[in-house]
């Protein structure tokens, strides 16, 4: 059993890296079409990675080499491991019994911390500013995100006392929307909105791409990275984007096609697996691509204010509505 899991882990890692780069290409193409450009070919990210892997890997003189070189690996491994705890379609998570949504949140933070550490270790003022911004960003969105997750978990713990309330697989087996009342429905909509708004910040995309901010601090935390290290960050970014959207899909859009078609066995798993990735792509295009072409980059204080007040309020109201729904 352990051996099977090991093989599955390896396959899954390769698969998410592949899909991460592919979806990155689709995202770039669609964004380009929305901006009235032609855009690069869809497989451009693969070319980019191949090229980057051939390039010289420069470590700046005043960098801290072991952190500087270790951070990209940490970011990539953290991003990939996020998928070991996520169900895909009707497939249960590979390590579902070892970790739940709280672990996933922590691993997301680890990926962000890896970027911060890499930035601080670069020894460049631009990277320092970028790393500071990434930390502020992290502190800004964690609270609303935690509130939203707690609301969800609390609701499940009250509704299904026999199932683990923090497990993503529970959310997939029992879709939230079919179990809430009207108040809870409204509350859950607000919670979903909160998580969707947190997603671009978690992923460092416009309007929250302050840690990189090309025109301001010249790619910030990434400024000193090149060659292999940068390629690792590049793949990690693609995988992390997938993981975040997959999380939202699992939490709020867990429906599967197999029961609809009355399939069972391998066919059902396969169909649901494919449908899962279609859902991830659709959500990615809506919550990342559309948002990043529609807005300008915000400033760090504006972002902090936005997350701490309006968005925290939204998630709190959502939590309150969910509680009311259960208690009334």
């Amino acid at each position: 059993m352990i051996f099977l899991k090991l093989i599955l882990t390896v396959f899954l890692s390769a698969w998410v890296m592949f899909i991460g780069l592919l979806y990155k290409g689709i995202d770039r193409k669609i964004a380009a079409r929305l901006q009235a450009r032609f855009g690069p070919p869809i497989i451009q990210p693969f070319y980019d990675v191949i090229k980057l892997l051939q390039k010289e890997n420069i470590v700046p003189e005043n960098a801290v080499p072991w952190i500087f070189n270790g951070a990209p690996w940490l970011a990539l491994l953290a991003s990939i491991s996020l998928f070991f705890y996520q169900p895909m379609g009707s497939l249960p998570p590979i390590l579902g019994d070892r970790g739940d949504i709280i672990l996933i949140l922590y691993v997301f933070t680890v990926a962000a911390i890896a970027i911060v550490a890499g930035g601080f270790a670069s020894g460049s003022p631009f990277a320092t500013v970028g790393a500071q911004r990434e930390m502020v960003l992290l502190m800004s969105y964690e609270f609303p995100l935690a509130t939203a997750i707690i609301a969800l978990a609390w609701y499940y713990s009250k509704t299904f006392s026999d199932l683990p309330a923090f497990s993503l697989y529970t959310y997939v087996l029992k879709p939230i929307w079919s179990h809430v009342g009207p108040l809870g429905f409204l509350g859950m909509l607000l919670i979903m909105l909160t998580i969707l708004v947190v997603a671009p910040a978690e992923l460092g995309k416009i309007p929250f791409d302050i840690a990189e901010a090309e025109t301001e601090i010249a790619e910030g935390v990434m400024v000193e990275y090149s060659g292999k290290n940068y390629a690792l960050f590049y793949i990690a970014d693609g995988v992390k984007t997938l993981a975040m959207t997959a999380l939202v899909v699992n939490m709020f859009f867990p429906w599967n096609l197999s029961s609809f078609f009355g399939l069972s066995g391998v066919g059902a798993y396969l169909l649901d697996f494919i449908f899962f990735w279609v859902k991830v792509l659709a959500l990615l295009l809506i919550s990342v691509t559309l948002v990043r072409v529609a807005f300008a980059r915000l400033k760090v204080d504006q972002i902090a204010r936005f997350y701490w007040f309006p968005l925290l309020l939204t998630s709190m109201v959502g939590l309150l509505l969910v509680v009311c729904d259960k208690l009334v």
Partner: protein
Amino acid sequence: MAEISYGYSVPIGPIHPALKEPIEFVFDIEGEKVKGVKIYAGHAHRGIEWMGMRRNPIQNLYLAERICGICSVTHALALALAVERALNIEVPPRAQYIRLIVAELERIHSHLLWAGVAAHEVGFDSAFMLLWKVRENVMDLLEKLTGNRVNYAIIQIGGVRRDITEELRHEIWKSLDYYRTLSERIKVLLLEDPTFTLRTRDVGVLTKEDALSLCAVGPTARASGVPKDVRQDQPYIAYADIGVKAITPDLYTGEVKGDVYDRTVVRLLEIDQSIDLIDKALTNMPDGEIVYEKNLVKLLALIKKGEGEGVGRHEAPRGEDVHYVKFVPGSENLAVWKVRAPTYSNLLPWVPMFKDAEVADIPIIVASTDPCMSCLNRATLVYPSGRKEVLTHEELHKLSVEKTRRLSRR
């Protein structure tokens, strides 16, 4: 007790993605706040004036066009105006109208280009792409009109080199209609966008007092409520017939704040103004000659005989551009050629704009005056042993006196 500094310094430039041309800023930063700034220019000095003083004015037109990559007609026009004033050459009315039309088309393309760059600086890349796409229309029109997309080579001493035919007139009308329909949408795209407003409102404020005392020019000054425009104050070419009124942001927003948002407002309103000016110029354009003297040999002979000095001023898209020329008898070359591009005057206003700005505001504040570094750089210091950064007033004065003596001996 010594003051403890928690800050660090961040260099922006000479090469940085926020800058389209080389210039160096060194910011003292505390957290995300800018506490001070030092500006070093001189990275794009090409010695164009020096080259110009070894050529005759007709050759210099080509050189002048290449001072700036965007204001292609500006420098050539200002030089031609200066030469014409020095030699008392009268420009035919039709040529004056054609000059106005090309100059205003250039303003449209320059302001669209600026708006795109500004959007890019705040990370609003969609607006950047769309604005540069609509800019292609005026670039194509300029190519039809003059033969070139940039560096139009249409200005000649005493007139212009190409006429606007009836067919081209219709092309221009068509283009004007295109921009008229777009004008409202461009304003909505930038001025009513919540994130763009968040990034530009109350950012990089230049008060009216500062704008006046630091001699800001062009849209930078007008956005601070100084109604200063060469086309209005001392009309030249056909502007005198048509009449121009300086645009201030209160026409659109009802108040003057002098921030980056206001500078955007001024530039977008000036696109409308340029459309109207071209419209009127096309309607009222008289028939007749387009150049004072067609025969270049005769023109050169006239220049060789001529003597005197002249100043040419033109309201470039970035502000007032001044050219000074001097002729001495017996030589067809310029004895003195001095260029003062608008960016030079807009250099000092940056300092109050950066006061208490955030790191994130730096690129948009730099871009907000629409700087052109290769226009700005008219001097560079080369010392055999390393770089000397600061020259005192006395040293500068001494150097200037020496140079004036050297020039007047020739």
